[in-house]
């Protein structure tokens, strides 16, 4: 990844960007997000299979100083996140330089978001058999079993909201859980509160989730909450032919409709 360091140095030294969001060596053998603001720091940048955090989350946190040009090291999920965020008018193309990393670890310098969009659409976007298997396992359960399964999982949740914080698409300044007039989502982390929270999270990500699984990775309790959004993503793709993170312009699955959307349950 010398090329990455080289590029980072160039970008910083000729002031094309002021901050690079990438990865560095963390503690106890982990990689972690890093914020590089001078060329001499660029040597700490790494990129390997441990670099899995969806860095797009930092692009909407408004923590980075305004009017700063930011470069972000973008794995495939980050690229998709950027496209979704851009389609939701959360990112300004003029302030974000995207340094893509291909699946075979090559650097792709995107000149604009449309460029990313093109790249994404050249890739294999289907769900993996492993992903499908996880969903199938739950689908195969009876209704009661599913209820029990999720009740058990949700009962462990203590609502640290790591899932929310780690998700690039969860950028609301006031989350539905903090909306209290009325209190739509029960605040405490009892079963009902957790149930309502996770449904809300999944529904709010329905058609917007790009499938990076960062939510369940962030979860300290290892709740398989990524399955909720994954299930919806699969369903939405099947039903409406729509996948998040692929188009800058297409309205997202739930803000549009087709008159002939096929359902079987409305009487």
């Amino acid at each position, binding site marked *: 990844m010398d090329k990455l360091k080289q590029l980072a140095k160039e970008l910083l030294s000729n002031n094309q960007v002021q901050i690079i969001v990438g990865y560095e060596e963390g503690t106890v053998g982990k990689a972690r997000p890093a914020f590089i603001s001078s060329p001499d720091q660029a040597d700490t940048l790494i990129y390997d299979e441990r670099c899995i955090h969806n860095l797009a989350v930092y692009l909407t946190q408004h923590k980075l100083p305004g009017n700063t040009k930011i470069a972000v090291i973008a794995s495939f999920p980050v690229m998709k996140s950027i496209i979704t965020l851009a389609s939701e008018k959360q990112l300004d193309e003029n302030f974000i330089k995207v340094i893509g990393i291909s699946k075979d670890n090559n650097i792709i310098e995107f000149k604009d978001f449309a460029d990313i969009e093109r790249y994404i659409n050249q890739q294999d976007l289907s769900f993996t058999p492993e992903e499908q298997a996880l969903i199938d396992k*739950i*689908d195969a*359960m009876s*209704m*009661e*079993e*599913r*209820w*029990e*399964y*999720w*009740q058990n999982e949700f009962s462990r949740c203590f609502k640290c909201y790591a899932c929310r914080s780690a998700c690039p698409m969860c950028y609301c300044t006031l989350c539905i859980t903090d909306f209290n007039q009325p209190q*739509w*989502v*029960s605040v*405490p982390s*009892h*079963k*009902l*509160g957790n*149930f*309502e929270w996770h*449904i*809300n999270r*999944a*529904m709010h990500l*329905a*058609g917007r989730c790009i499938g990076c699984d960062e939510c369940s990775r962030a979860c300290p309790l290892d709740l398989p909450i990524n399955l*909720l959004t994954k*299930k*919806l993503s699969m*369903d*939405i793709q099947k*039903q*409406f032919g729509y996948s998040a993170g692929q188009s800058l312009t297409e309205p997202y*699955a*739930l*803000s*549009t*409709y*087709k*008159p002939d*959307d096929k*359902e079987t*349950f*409305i*009487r």
Partner: protein
Amino acid sequence: MNEFEPKVVAFVCNWCTYAGADLTGTSRIKYAPNVKIIRFPCTGRIDFMLILKAFAKGADGIIISGCHPNDCHYTSGNFHAKRRWMVFRTMLDFLGVDVNRITFSWVSAAEGARWAEIVNTTVDGIKKLGPYDNYRKMVNEETEVNNG
């Protein structure tokens, strides 16, 4: 023990189903009194959280009803609603929520008899399913939390 009388909430749109239910009244067609209606401007206004709230507050069943496709007073509210329900219903089902307790239907302003039929079949169906104990158990857990 008396026969179980389910509590059913109906979220309906103002222009079609509410008017349809008015027609049921005008036509004096009798139906089960378990269903109580909340009026909305359009099915597009019906937030999925309302469905969850109704269950959390003790509903055994829910009816959601609006204009037939292409009849929406606002052109497309019901189409949007339909998509959301498709997704939401998938979600509920995946979580093990009993989706048979939610009747989604289109009832026009002219379908007074149909409204009565929707209500009656829904109430009958939910009577067979019994009280929604699973959900209530989850709700009640909140008040028993860690207090022994």
